[in-house]
């Protein structure tokens, strides 16, 4: 048939509590990718023809009911060719049955879950690209084991986590990871999302005698903990914080004080493709990408683009290609294992103004971690 464009649709939290996360990791990459593809003449088809992308965008207003309906709308009203996933673990799960029912591949990025293998079984066309909690915590445990072996830190950990899906997933993975690595978790509490004052927890952690402080936190809390730790002169040898640490603004804001702080994600600064991507991102969207999920999101779009190029607009074929093909993306060479991305950076650290990948320690390109974390300036 004579098509003149490819319709790509997505529903994203532009407003409401999720908009902060979606606005940094997901939406800018969708915008960037669509612009780049269209500037280059459009999506390339197997026959070499290029078709521009026509974007259909909805705001899910951070509501589960809205995101479900928006996907239904994209599939049955707008009849888009592909649907990009929403932001957040819960929302990706909420829409997974719909992607499945309507036959759309779902390249879920901003969803950290250990249940990915089960989900892949249930929804054959779902892809999980950000790993599971266990990946991150065992990478961290590996790093800690190394440090303890070198005598840098003791074997005690103080740990706090936010009481929502993300925090729980990570903390439940962390407990066995740390235990297996021979660490003792001496302080282990959960706080409600929206907590602004961490003084009591910091005081307890400081008094616990642990050299390592881990917080599976969200951005506002990550920022708050960093500030309040400085005020309280709480300077653990290892400071590992959650989402938000990998935001460029975190580095800018904390300057020299960011040095040595660790978190999920990270990038290999020597990866040129990534560096070029970061530059384009800054230019087009006016903001720098975060240093964890952003590049993976962009990578997922490149995979989709490439799969379309190879197999056309047939969604089943594209799904098959995504499952089995090998792709060259900003991450380098990517091949999914059981619909999951396994080659990821699970731990990063701020080192002289850059959030570099430090874990898994044995992966090529990993920078050596700076331990212990330097004292607050």
């Amino acid at each position, binding site marked *: 048939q004579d098509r003149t464009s490819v319709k790509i649709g997505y529903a994203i939290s532009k407003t409401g509590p999720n908009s902060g996360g979606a606005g940094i990791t997901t939406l800018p990459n969708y915008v960037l990718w669509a612009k780049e593809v269209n500037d280059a003449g459009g999506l390339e088809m197997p026959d070499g023809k290029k078709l521009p992308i026509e974007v259909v965008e909805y705001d899910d207003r951070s509501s589960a009911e809205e995101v479900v309906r928006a996907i239904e709308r994209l599939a*049955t009203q707008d009849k888009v060719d592909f649907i990009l996933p929403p932001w957040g673990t819960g929302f990706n*799960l909420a829409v997974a049955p719909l992607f499945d029912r309507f036959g759309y591949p779902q390249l879920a990025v901003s969803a950290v879950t250990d249940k990915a293998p089960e989900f892949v079984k249930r929804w054959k066309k779902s892809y999980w690209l950000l790993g599971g909690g266990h990946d991150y915590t065992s990478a961290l445990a590996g790093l800690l084991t190394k440090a303890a072996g070198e005598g840098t830190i003791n074997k005690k950990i103080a740990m706090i986590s936010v009481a929502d899906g993300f925090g729980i997933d990570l903390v439940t993975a962390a407990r066995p990871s740390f235990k297996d690595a021979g660490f003792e978790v001496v302080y282990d509490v959960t706080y409600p999302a929206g907590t602004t004052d961490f003084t009591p927890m910091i005081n307890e952690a400081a008094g616990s005698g642990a050299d390592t402080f881990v917080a599976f936190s969200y951005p506002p809390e990550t920022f708050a903990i960093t500030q309040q730790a400085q005020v309280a002169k709480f300077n653990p040898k290892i400071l590992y914080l959650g989402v938000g640490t990998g935001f460029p603004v975190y580095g800018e804001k904390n300057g020299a004080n960011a040095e040595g702080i660790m978190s999920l994600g990270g990038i290999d600064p020597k990866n040129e493709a990534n560096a070029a991507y970061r530059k384009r991102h800054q230019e087009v969207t006016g903001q720098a990408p975060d240093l964890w999920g952003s590049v993976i999101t962009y990578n997922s779009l490149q995979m989709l683009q490439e799969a379309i190029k190879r197999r056309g607009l047939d969604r089943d074929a594209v799904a098959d290609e995504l499952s089995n093909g090998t792709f060259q993306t900003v991450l380098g060479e990517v091949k999914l294992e059981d619909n999951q991305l396994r080659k990821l950076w699970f731990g990063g650290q701020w080192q002289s103004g850059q959030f570099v990948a430090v874990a898994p320690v044995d992966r090529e390109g990993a920078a050596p971690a700076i331990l212990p974390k330097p004292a607050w300036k």
Partner: protein
Amino acid sequence: MRTALGFAAAAIVFAVLAFAPFYLDAYGIGLMIGMTGYVTLASAWGLFSGRTGYVSLATVAFFGMGAYTVAVLNETLPYPVILLVAGAIGLLVAVVVGFSTLRLAGVYFVIFTFGLAELIRQLVTWFETTVTGTLGRYIFLPVGPEHIYWQLLVLCAATLFITWWVGRSRLGLALRVIADDEVVASHIGIDIARTKLALFSVSAVIITLVGAIQAPRWTYVEPAIVFNPTVSFLTLIMALLGGASRLWGPALGAIPLFLLFEWLSANFPDHYSILLGLLFIVIVFVLPRGVAGFAKDLTRRRPGGTPAAPKLDAAPLGTESREARS
């Protein structure tokens, strides 16, 4: 005669609506689910709050409990039983809450109910994280969207019927008296506590059921998703906008507002908020007595339909003070 005609018309409308899944696509059904859900929520809200003037923000507490009950029990009990359990839990909580709020009036009641919803959310979260160690729960129930829709439609019809029945019963008059002046109400023999409690419970059970019925649509449920306070606010706004104390008022507020939200977020994803806000303000200025009031003005005026205004500043109970008459 009028009543019979009204019933016939309503029956026809609901019959037509029941066939909707056969000629609508998935999105259409989704839309109908959302709309029916909010019509039911707003009507159930109006049943208590619209009639007594006690503005409740606890809607999402019951809605969320309904959804959570399904999430917790979906692998252990048959679906109809889960709904019963959800209803029972809603009733139980409603009675406890109803009892504790009897002394509160006006804005104190409003914020109390808001605090209550948040408390329940926090407790559920805490329980799940520290006691069961799981926060998110999965719902893999073989309940399709059209089944959800039909269930909601039945619930909606039931809610409207109850509202109609209450409106013409002694209970309805009692509520209007309470809304006007509780001191007088008690002095003419109305048991305020029982009346309020009864209505609050009915309304809460309906709301709980809406949450329970809708839950299978989300697959994954966590407190942040099902206890989203927006639900309370939207319900309240829809009911107030339509005219909370009238039979069709909440529906007349919910349907256009729901469609408006949908249309705005689809066509103006970037300026959704601004346009929505401006529209709200315009509506307040143009339709001072709600959509239902406006509709009534268009047709005819009949005494006795004046809406009970929320008692945010209820006259002090038991004191003899009243402001200048007129």
